[in-house]
């Protein structure tokens, strides 16, 4: 490998490194389906899965399928075959075990539930997992490399941070169309995986400093970078890890997760420009003229690498130090199936392959009285579809309170402090009830989702205290944004409650044009569309002297209307409580 780094080249290199050291966990592939992603998947199946198709983990996979569980069909078939009643329960392996020794492809990784992500991280950490289900108590093997397809477009869709943390590499597949040729022949990969060069303290310290300079504190990430440097040296048939391996490892593992980049204005450390004295890959490079591992990776080298391999948008947010998007343990979407978990509340007739859990005992009980009629042989059980019973579960609906806060000049400017205080008290209520909260603020030209739905109070509080005030009132846009958010929540089977705090005087059009002559009527249009959705809504008029606009808005929204000449936290809290309980 020589020449300038490219995103495609790095992705190919990452796959080779995963083949050498599967402990690197895997690769997060950010981007929509496209030629780059297809090329990457094909290469991965070739390099990491002996050309076989990877095991796919679809969205909404059931715990039975993921971890393994009772194979009902096989268990019943076994019993009728040997004629000795229901025989030994037969285990159907889960997808995690099917992927053992190969490649696991996580579809729509950003939308996978916390439970799925946690099972994945546990397996990635240990190469095996405990199965305690349906009477089985066993350890199942699960050594695989994971490819996570992350199609997140919005801030509130970040992939589970625990899973992100386990995958050493991240690539942006929209930035390339094809991969370069395999960087290393297969034999070299095999040879490298058998003997990795030793890791020195200096190498670790250098990578750790680089990580800290990019705002990465996780030690797991540094460990991955160190392992990647080892694997790189192994692939390049080197005895020791040199400056180049350290630089490459930092670029491959650390850079895509940087929260900030070292600013180029800072006085440069006197690190010499690494001379490009590398010979071709397959000729053995002389150890003597190689750059020894230094203590520091030169900042400008990192910045140049960042320019070469990161997409422009991410780069821009990095240099302004704002790559918080994927940094936090962001809210994640959950798709909820009809309750298949929770507190069991009884059984009912019926069975579907992917639906609720079969209650074996109840099924057998239902079949028992008919055995003589059905002419079952002694010792075997004749079960008909009609006998199937499934467990019913009760699961609480997650309530999400969405605060839509007017932070514009006309309204809350002087009262923003009071409003913040009231919201904080509401947050404390939500905390006790384990509700989620979201915060949508609007001022200037557009609404902004300050806080995606979360249960973390620390985050909610931070978002609130960072909320500035002043500017125009994009009320129409805010109502549109609130509708989008709330319907999204509803799709995830959560119950949204909207609390709109405003004086009702929007002066920005739906398209974001300030001073739009139609602003007022467009606001009402947006309100009636939101009203049609029928969410429980509370409109709190925060004007000093309430006028008719807010009242009218509340009527259009079908919202409860509350005038708060003084925002008194307790009455506000009581009102929210009232709208939350239908």
């Amino acid at each position: 490998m020589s020449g300038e780094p490219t995103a495609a080249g790095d992705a190919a290199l990452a796959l080779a490194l995963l083949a050498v050291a599967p402990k690197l966990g895997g690769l997060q592939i950010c981007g929509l389906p496209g030629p780059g992603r297809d090329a990457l998947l094909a290469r991965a199946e070739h390099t990491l899965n002996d050309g076989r198709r990877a095991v796919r983990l679809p969205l909404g996979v059931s715990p039975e399928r993921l971890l393994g569980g009772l194979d009902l069909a096989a268990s019943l078939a076994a019993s009728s075959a040997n004629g000795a009643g229901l025989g030994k329960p037969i285990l159907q392996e889960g997808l995690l075990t099917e992927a053992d020794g190969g490649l696991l492809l996580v579809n729509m990784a950003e939308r996978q539930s916390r439970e799925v992500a946690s099972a994945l991280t546990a397996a990635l950490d240990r190469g095996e997992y405990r199965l305690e289900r349906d009477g089985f108590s066993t350890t199942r093997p699960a050594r695989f490399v994971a490819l996570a397809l992350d199609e997140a477009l919005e801030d509130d869709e970040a992939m589970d941070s625990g899973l992100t943390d386990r995958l050493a590499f991240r690539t942006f597949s929209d930035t390339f169309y094809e991969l370069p040729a395999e960087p290393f022949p297969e034999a070299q990969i095999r040879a490298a995986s058998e003997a990795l060069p030793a890791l020195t303290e200096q190498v670790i310290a250098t990578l750790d400093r680089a990580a800290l300079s990019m705002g990465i504190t996780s030690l797991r990430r540094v460990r991955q970078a160190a392992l990647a440097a080892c694997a790189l040296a192994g692939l390049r048939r080197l005895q020791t890890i040199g400056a180049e391996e350290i630089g490459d490892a930092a670029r491959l593992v650390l850079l895509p997760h940087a929260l900030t980049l070292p600013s180029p204005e800072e006085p440069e450390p006197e690190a010499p420009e690494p001379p490009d004295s590398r010979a071709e890959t397959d000729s053995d490079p002389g150890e003597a003229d190689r750059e020894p591992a230094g203590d520091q990776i030169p900042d400008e080298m990192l910045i140049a690498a960042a320019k070469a391999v990161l997409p422009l948008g991410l780069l821009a947010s990095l240099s302004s130090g704002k790559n918080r998007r994927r940094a936090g343990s962001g809210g994640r979407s959950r798709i909820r199936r009809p309750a298949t978990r929770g507190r069991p509340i009884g059984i009912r007739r019926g069975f579907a392959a992917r639906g609720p859990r079969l209650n074996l005992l109840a099924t057998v009980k239902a079949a028992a009285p008919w055995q003589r009629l059905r002419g079952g042989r002694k010792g075997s059980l004749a079960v008909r579809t009609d006998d199937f019973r499934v467990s019913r579960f009760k699961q609480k609906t997650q309530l999400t309170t969405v605060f839509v806060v007017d932070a514009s000049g006309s309204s809350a400017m002087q009262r923003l402090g009071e409003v913040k205080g009231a919201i904080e008290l509401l947050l404390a209520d939500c905390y006790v009830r384990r509700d989620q909260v979201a915060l949508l603020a609007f001022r200037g030209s557009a609404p902004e989702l300050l806080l995606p739905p979360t249960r973390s109070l620390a985050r909610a509080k931070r978002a609130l205290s960072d909320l500035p005030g002043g500017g125009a009132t994009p009320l129409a846009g805010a109502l549109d944004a609130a509708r989008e958010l709330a319907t999204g929540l509803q799709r995830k089977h959560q119950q949204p409650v909207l609390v709109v705090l405003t004086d009702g005087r929007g002066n920005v059009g739906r398209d974001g044009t300030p001073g739009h002559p139609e602003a007022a009527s467009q606001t009402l249009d947006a309100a009636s569309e939101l009203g049609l959705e029928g969410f429980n809504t509370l409109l709190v008029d925060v004007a000093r002297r309430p006028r008719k606009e807010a009242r009218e808005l509340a009527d259009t929204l079908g919202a409860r209307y509350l005038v708060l000449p003084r925002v008194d936290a307790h009455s506000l809290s009581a009102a929210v409580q009232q709208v939350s309980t239908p």
Partner: protein
Amino acid sequence: MKTVFPFAAIVGQEAMKQALLVSAVDPSIGGVLVLGDRGTGKSTTVRALAALLPKIEMVKGCPYNRPPDSPAKLYPPFKGDKQAIVKRPIPVVDLPLGATEDRVVGALDLEAALVRGEKSFEPGLLAAANRGFLYIDEVNLLEDHLVDLLLDVAASGENAVEREGLSVRHPARFVLIGSGNPEEGELRPQLLDRFGLAVDITTPTELSERVEVIRRRDDFDRDPAGFRRRWARREGAIRKKILTGREKLDAVEVPTAVLEDAARLCLALETDGLRGELTLIRAARALAAYHGRDAVTTEDLRTMSGAALGHRLRRNPLDESRALVRVERAVEEVFG
């Protein structure tokens, strides 16, 4: 059994290690909750503990780990009981996510019921954890009804199963260890103060410490067995201290002055009820026993105060001022 990273080789994280060790000395302290960032080695430390713990005597083959000296009628009978006594390491049982309720509490043994027409009880994880530890990673992800069930059993020390025509009771005394990441959604306050001790752990910030963490991990990954051998002596020393601590525990004296100190500290912090005070004294006593001392000192109280009291302070959930800081301040004021 996979080779696990040795407990003795874990760099830093003193508060967590201390909380686990005193719980191993005195299981009645009431469990440990570990809250902290990702990648700080929460799971590694708990699994390391499992390999460190000394052996205890139990009836051979008993799925409930029955101690030899206990009245047999407390425990359900099991097949193949030869009344033999064996020594086994104190169990550390993992409660994996996705575990079903029947595997946790135990259930009707379906195979026996269907094939042989026998109604027998198949013990679950609570039975396996009896007299040992039960570990739940990401406790904030566990389903609510399972959490309630676990807390109920942990508090009563007994697992009562009334389902599927079975009526079984068996002792289930275990130290509950939970870990979680507070950024991922908060724990219910009710859950928080059910734990005896709670510790916050953070990523080390000192470069030398960080390098050491990775270096040792790398050494271990390259040669797990060899690495364990190199640490075996230090590992053995800790094990011995736990063992002597367990034997010594009842003999450790708590001077009246220390009791008063504990009471004054709890008063100053306005902790609810007596539970905090009791836990503090127990933890301090276990610490003294672990170090082989005959009496508890105020210094022991000081060491354990953060873990025993930090999570019991009455606080506004939005108050970000760290509870530990408040405990430290109160300790300074009261103990000088």
